[in-house]
Structures are given as C-alpha cells and as structure tokens.
C-alpha cells in the first residue's frame, strides 16, 4: 500500500512538473474548463432551486380556478355564474376574484392589481383609498407606508391612494408587483360593474374529486375553463426545462466547447509528447505507468475544474442572487423581483454534472496517450 501511494505521488509529481512547463496554455485550459462547469452548474442549481421553491410556495394556491373564455380570450365572469357553480357537488367554497393588470407609464412597468379576499390582509390596511404594495413596486416608485400615490385609470380618471403597508422583501418572488386595493376601489378604477369577477377560485372537499369536478364544470358552464392546481404546479415544474432556449444554448455551447477541447486533446499529441513517452518507456516505465501518469493529469485538471467551477456556481446562485442571470431573467420587464433562492441541491444532478464533465475529459486525455504508449521501447534508440 505504501509503495502504491509513493508511486502515485511520484507520478503526480511528474505530471505536475510537465504541466508546469506550459503554464499559460494549461492554466488557460483550466480556466475555460472551470467556466463551462460554472455555467452549467449555475443553471442547474438555479433552476432546481427555483422549481423546488415554486412547488413549495404554490402548493397552497387555489385548487381550481374557473376562467370564462370569449373568442379565445380570458373574459370577465358575468353575474349568475357563481350561483350556477354552487349546484356542483363537492365544491366546498367558491369565491369570485378580482385582479388585473395596470401599466404604469411613469416607470414603464406592469403591476398586478388585486383585491384580497376578506381577512387576507390585516384589518384596515386595505380599505377604500388605502393600498398595500409589493416590495418591487415600492422600490420602483420610492414608496414607504404613509405616502400618497396616484394612478390614471384606463377611463382617464385620476385616483389617489394612501400606501398603508409594503409587503415584505422576503415575499418578492410571489408578490413583487402586487398592488392590493379594496373591492370598491378596484371596481371604480377599472370600471367593472358589481357582480362581475375576473375569475372564480374553488376549493374542493375531497382532493381526489378535483378531476370529476372539472369535468362537471365544463358541462355546466361550457364557456369556462377550469385550471387545476396540479396544472399550475406542472407549469413551474417545466420552467427552465432543458429544452428551453437559454438552457439549450448554454448546454449546446458548452458541449461544443467541450468537444473542441477533447478533440484538441485527442488529435493534438505532438511529436514532442510522443518522444517523451518513448523516453519514459526506454528508461523503464511500463505502458501502464505512462497511462497512470496521464490519468492523474486528466483527473487533477478535471477534478480541480469541477470543484472550483461548482463552488463558484454555488456562491453565484445562492450568495450573489444569480447576478449574472438577472439581465436574462429580467427580459423586457422593468419590474423585477429581487429574491434569494433557498438552496436546494439535488445530489443526483451534481453527480450527473460530475460524470459529464470529469469523465470525458479524463478519457480524452488517456486515449491518445494509450495509442502512443504501446509503441516499442526501442523506438527511441532508432530515431
């Protein structure tokens, strides 16, 4: 055992000494390699944490939302629908919801105006003329509780509201653009007559009945579309799926870069390297020793690149709020939530990343050497 360790450390010594001969080239290689791992790991950590967080947070969203469709568009629920729904068995609670979008020309941002259900917000916070705003809205408009703010409604009238409260920063991921206002204010602002709603939220007594209820809904109200909670959750399961643009671009870019890398390695065995292998064999190294030495080269480089790249990605995503992704995620939106994801690291994914970055590189280092190392040891004398 001791001999084995001594031998491997000696081989590592040699491989490090020969790497050190082309410092700039090898260091650059390591850097590129690290960058690839960093990008892939960042995307991986970010998306899995976001998906996990979505699943955890949205597990409490309404069980069924009923929308009304008119000519392929989401339309207001007319009076009478709520009553007709009441006749479906298994529906425990039904509630007309009021929410909609408002474009704020001052900062060129979209807000979501919403009427909270009774008891959802502390009493007195959302009353007529009083609103509660999301943290990003407050940041964008420089609002603190007690401020007055006015919006020009789509009908042309000016409405003034007093900011009663700002939703906590920790909740930005779900509430950054919210503006909670009273029902009377909402109806006046958007000119929606009483009895009309944006959609209807249902809660169901027996969760296993959800699908049956959705089927009955479609029968009772043929122009309605039920959206089940599981569909909501599934929407977020597939966010940043590997097929999605950015992820695909990153992935294919990295794989291509890696292929170039490996190809350069595999075909770029220089005459100098071949000569060195010949010398090593002539002075008493076995083919296996040469391969082990090269294995250590590949393993050291790829392991270092993987570990450093992964650590950098972890810090980037969970300590620096994935700052490099922000411009992409923001898109054209002015209002962007600032959130720190709670780390959710999937061991299997890390193992997959490890396998797909460390393994091919090590193989790409060894294979061409193996071809050169099986030459006769006397070649060096004949040249």
């Amino acid at each position, binding site marked *: 055992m001791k001999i084995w360790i*001594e031998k491997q450390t*000696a081989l590592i010594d040699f491989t490090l000494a020969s790497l050190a001969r082309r410092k700039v080239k090898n260091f650059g290689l390591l850097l590129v390699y690290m960058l690839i791992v960093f990008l892939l790991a960042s995307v991986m950590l970010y998306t899995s944490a976001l998906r996990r967080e979505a699943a955890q947070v949205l597990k409490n969203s309404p069980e069924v939302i009923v929308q009304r469709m008119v000519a392929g568009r989401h339309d207001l629920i007319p009076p009478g629908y709520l009553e007709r729904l009441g006749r479906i068995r298994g529906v425990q609670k039904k509630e007309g919801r009021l929410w909609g979008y408002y474009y704020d020309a001052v900062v060129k941002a979209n807000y979501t105006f919403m009427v909270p259900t009774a008891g959802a917000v502390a009493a007195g916070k959302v009353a007529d003329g009083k609103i509660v705003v999301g943290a990003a809205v407050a940041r964008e408009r420089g609002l603190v509780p007690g401020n007055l703010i006015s919006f020009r409604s789509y009908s042309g009238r000016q409405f003034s509201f007093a900011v009663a409260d700002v939703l906590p920063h920790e909740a930005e991921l779900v509430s950054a653009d919210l503006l909670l206002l009273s029902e009377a204010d909402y109806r006046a602002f958007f000119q929606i007559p009483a009895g009309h709603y944006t959609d209807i939220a249902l809660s169901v007594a027996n969760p296993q009945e959800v699908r049956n209820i959705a089927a009955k809904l479609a029968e009772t109200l043929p122009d309605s579309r039920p959206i089940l909670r599981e569909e909501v959750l599934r929407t977020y399961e597939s966010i940043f799926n590997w097929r999605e643009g950015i992820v695909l671009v990153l992935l294919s870019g990295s794989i291509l870069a890696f292929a170039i890398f490996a190809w350069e390695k595999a075909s770029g065995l220089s005459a100098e390297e071949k000569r*060195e292998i010949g010398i090593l064999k*002539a002075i008493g190294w076995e083919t296996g020793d040469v391969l082990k030495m090269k294995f250590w080269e590949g393993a050291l480089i790829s392991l270092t690149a993987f570990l450093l790249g992964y650590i950098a990605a972890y810090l980037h995503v969970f300590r620096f709020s994935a700052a490099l992704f922000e411009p992409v995620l923001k898109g054209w939106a002015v209002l962007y939530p600032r959130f720190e994801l709670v780390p959710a690291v999937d061991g299997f994914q890390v193992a997959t990343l490890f396998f797909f970055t460390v393994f091919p590189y090590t193989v790409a280092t060894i294979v061409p050497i193996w071809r050169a190392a099986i030459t*006769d040891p006397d070649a060096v*004398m004949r040249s």
Partner: protein
Amino acid sequence: MIKLTNIRKAYNQGRENEFWALDGINLEIEAQRVTALCGPSGSGKTTLLTIVGCLARPTSGRVHLKERDISGLPERFLTEIRRSTFGFVFQQFNLIKGLSARDNVMLPAYPLGGDWRALHDRAETLLDSLKLGHRRDARVEWLSGGEQQRVAIARAMINDPQVVIADEPTANLDTALSREFLAILENLKEQGKTILLTSHDPLVIESTVVDTVVNLRDGRLVRGA
C-alpha cells in the same frame, strides 16, 4: 554475465523492404568489464544494444542474463529486468525538456514507488559526484552538451544497475569532454559496473579503460580485426 546465442534480428520482416540488422551473433559479455561494440554505421551496433538492454526482442536466438533465458519473456517482465539491471545513456541523451536536472535523474525510479526523500537525496549525491550539484535545479535544455550527458549518466545510475549501456557516448562531445567521459567510465568500472558501449571514436576504442573491443560489420562479428 550476458550470453548471446545465434542472435538474428530482422526489421520489416515478411515485407519487401525486409532487412536483417543482425545475422547470427554469438557473444559473451563479461561482468565488471568495459566492452565496446565497434563498427561503421549500419553495422548493427545499436540493434545489438537494444537486444542486450531488453528494449527489443531478437527475431531468433537466445539471450541469457546470468544463466536466465530472457529472450522469450513478455514485455512486462522485460521492463522490470530493464529497470533493475540496466542503465541507459542515449546518443541524443534523451532528457525530458523543461524539467530540472534532478527531476530527470529521478525519473526511472518513479514507477518503483520507493521512498521519495531517499530518492531525492540519491539523485543529489549522484549529481554531486558528477560535479553537477550546482546545476541540479536548472532546466536540462539550459545545460551544455557535456552537462547534459552527465545528467544522462546520473539518470542511468539512479536505480543502481549492474550494467550500463551507452550508445555512441562521445558522438556529441569534443575531445576534452570525451576524456572526461572516459574518466567517469573508469570510475564506474571501479564501482563494479559492467559497461557496454558502442562507438567508432578511436579515442574510446583505443582507451585503456576499454577491456574488449567487438567489431561488427553487416550484422556479423568480425574476429581479430
């Protein structure tokens, strides 16, 4: 020490450019002596060296190393014998560029897995004894030809071999350096090493250090030339 029986060696056997480099060599190399193989280029000297040094196997014939027939052994065993029994000094020195003199000297011992510290000290002692102690950390390509050869000699000695094999050792040296080499040779002989070298340099062949001169021509021995 080493006994060669009816050694023949062909290159490109069975092809049109088939060429017999050695054609029936019978030779005995005595222990603790200096034997010089002498002959024009193409006479088969170097091929004979590679066969004695276990770098290559003969096409036919037997090689005995201390009564043991080694001509039929698989490569793995040959490597082991080569490592423990022979030390090589190549014509072009064949040092690994970019590494220090000491690293080059230590190379043959790496696969053995011995104690590194002891190996390190042994390499330095060897370099010191060859008056290269001050250059031990220099990269080999910065050394002069004579210095490079001494590094190559130190490398050949690192595993304490019984036999030292040198291929045209003075081909790249001037007269003064060649004489220095002969002095080192004398020293190695006193230490009890068996030395086998090829040369067509009269300085070497006529030197008193060399005990036996074997003449080769066209792959055959030339007796009494």
